[in-house]
C-alpha cells in the first residue's frame, strides 16, 4: 500500500526544463485561445439572444424540470445503492448459481441502453396490464414516474454493484487474514475493516456514476416524465430558439461541476490520513 510506495525523503528536484516557444507550446496555446474565443462567442450569443419574455415564460418550466431530474437521479441512485449490495454479494459468491444470477443481471443492464430499458418497463409492461392487475402491481406501473424510478434503479444498481465489487476486491487478502487472526467475524470484518477502505476506492467511480445518471436521465421524457431535457425540448418545439438548448447545457454543466467538486472535497477529507 502507500507505505511501501513512500520515496526516500531526500530527492534532488530536477532542474526546470527551458521554457522556450516549442512547436507543441505554440500549438497548445493556439488551441486554448481557440476554445476561449469559442466560449466568449457563446457568452456573447447568450447575452445577445437574451429574451426576457422567453425567460419569464419558460423559467418555471426549467425549474420544475430541474427538480424532476434531481429527484429522479437522487431517488434512483439511493435505491440502486441499496439494491447493489446483494447483487455485488451474489457476483462474488462462490455459489455458482448465485454468481451466475448476479453476472446475468449486471450483463443485461450494462449491456443494453437505458432508453431501451425505460421504454420496455413503461410500454412493455403496460401491455401486460391484466396480469399486473391480477397481482396488484398495476397501480405502481401505471404511473410514468414509478416506471422511470424502477428502470433507473435497476440500471444504476448494476453499475454500482460492479463498483462495489471492484472496490472490495481491491482490498488485499492480508486485511481479511489479519481480521480473521484477530477473531473478528466475517460481518465485523466487512463492516469495520473492508468497507471503510473499499469505499474510499469506490468514491470516484460512484461520483462518475451519479454524473452519468444525471446525463443519462435526459431520455426520460420518452415515457412522459418531463425532466430538464424534456422541458427544454418542449420549449424548443414551441420557440425554435436554440438558446433553449444552450440553457439546458449550462444547467447540466453546473450540476456536474457542483457534484465533481463535492466528491473531490469528500475525498480530500476522507483520505487525509493517507497524505504525507
Amino acid at each position, binding site marked *: 500500500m502507500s507505505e511501501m510506495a513512500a520515496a526516500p525523503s531526500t530527492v534532488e528536484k530536477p532542474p526546470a526544463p527551458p521554457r522556450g516557444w516549442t512547436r507543441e507550446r505554440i500549438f497548445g496555446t493556439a488551441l486554448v485561445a481557440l476554445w476561449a474565443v469559442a466560449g466568449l462567442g457563446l457568452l456573447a450569443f447568450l447575452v445577445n439572444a437574451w429574451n426576457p419574455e422567453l425567460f419569464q415564460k419558460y423559467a418555471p418550466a426549467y425549474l420544475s424540470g430541474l427538480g424532476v431530474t434531481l429527484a429522479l437521479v437522487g431517488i434512483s441512485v439511493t435505491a440502486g445503492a441499496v439494491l447493489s449490495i446483494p447483487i455485488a454479494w451474489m457476483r462474488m459468491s462462490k455459489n455458482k448459481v448465485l454468481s451466475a444470477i448476479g453476472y446475468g443481471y449486471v450483463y443485461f443492464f450494462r449491456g443494453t441502453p437505458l432508453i431501451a430499458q425505460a421504454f420496455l418497463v413503461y*410500454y412493455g409492461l*403496460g*401491455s401486460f*396490464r391484466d396480469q399486473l392487475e391480477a397481482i396488484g402491481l398495476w397501480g405502481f406501473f*401505471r404511473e*410514468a414516474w414509478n416506471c422511470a424510478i424502477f428502470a433507473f434503479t435497476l440500471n444504476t444498481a448494476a453499475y454500482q454493484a460492479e463498483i462495489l465489487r471492484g472496490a472490495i476486491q481491491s482490498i488485499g487478502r492480508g486485511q481479511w487474514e489479519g481480521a480473521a487472526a484477530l477473531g473478528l467475524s466475517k460481518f465485523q470484518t466487512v463492516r469495520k475493516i473492508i468497507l471503510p477502505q473499499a469505499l474510499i476506492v469506490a468514491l470516484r467511480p460512484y461520483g462518475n456514476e451519479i454524473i452519468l445518471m444525471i446525463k443519462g436521465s435526459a431520455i426520460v*421524457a*420518452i415515457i*412522459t416524465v*418531463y425532466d430538464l431535457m424534456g422541458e427544454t*425540448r*418542449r420549449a*424548443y*418545439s*414551441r420557440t*425554435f430558439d436554440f438558446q433553449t438548448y444552450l440553457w439546458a447545457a449550462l444547467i447540466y454543466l453546473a450540476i456536474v461541476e457542483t457534484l465533481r467538486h463535492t466528491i473531490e472535497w469528500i475525498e480530500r477529507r476522507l483520505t487525509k490520513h493517507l497524505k504525507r
Partner: protein
Amino acid sequence: MPIMKRLALAASAAAIAASFSAANAQETLKIGTEGAYPPFNNLTADGKLVGFDVEIAEALCEEMKVECEFVTQDWDGIIPALQAGKFDAIVASMSITPERMEQVNFTDPYYVNSLVFIAPKDSDMDPSAVGNMVIGVQEGTIAAIFAEETYPDADLKAYPTQLEAWSDLDTGRVDAVLADFGVQYDWINSDDGACCEFKGDPVSSDDRIGIALRKDETELRDRFNTAIKAIRENGTYAEINKKYFPFDIYGE
C-alpha cells in the same frame, strides 16, 4: 507515358463531369416527413415509407417533374432540420400556424383537419367536461398547444409520437387522446384501436395542412401550389383520398 497518363486522367475527369451534369438534369427534391403518423406517413415493418402524405408528395413530384427522395425526421426537430437544409420541403401533415409561419413558408393547404377526442368505448368521456382528466397528446403538435390552452385543469401527458399516446390509451394510463381527425379515424378503425371511439364532435376545426418550405423558397412554393392545383384537377388527388378515407379530406 506521362502524356498518356495525363490524357487518361483528363478523360476520366470529363466522364465524371458528364455524369454530374446528367444527374443535375433531373432535379432532386428531398422531402422531410416524420414516419410515425399513420395513415399519413409511417414506416412499414420492412422500412418502407407509406401513407397519404407520401403519396401526395409523390404525385406532386411527378407533376413538377422532379425526382423525390424522402427523409424521416423526429417531429420536434423537423422545422430546424428543414432550415438547416437537411431536406427541401416538409410533407408531414403540418398545420399552418402563425408561430410556424415565422419560421417557414407554407404552400396552399392540401387538406383540412380538425381536432377530435377518442376514448374507450365504455367511457363516458365528454369533450365539453374535460375537468381534470388525463389527456394524451403528441408533443409539438397543435393538439398539445390547444389542450394546454383549453383545458388548464386537465393532466396533460405529452408523448414523442402519436403511437405512444394511443398505446397508453389502450393500457388505460390516459383517459382520452386528443389529435387530428384523420389519424384518429384510421386508428379506431384498425385492430389496435378497436377499444376506442370518437367522443363528441371535433373540438376545433378548419385547421389547414400545408407543405412547409424554407422562407426564401418562393419559387418552389409557387411550383408546389401549381402542382397541388393540377392533381386536384386531374383526379390524382381524389384517387389517393379514396385509398385512405371514405370522405373528402380536402375540404373546400
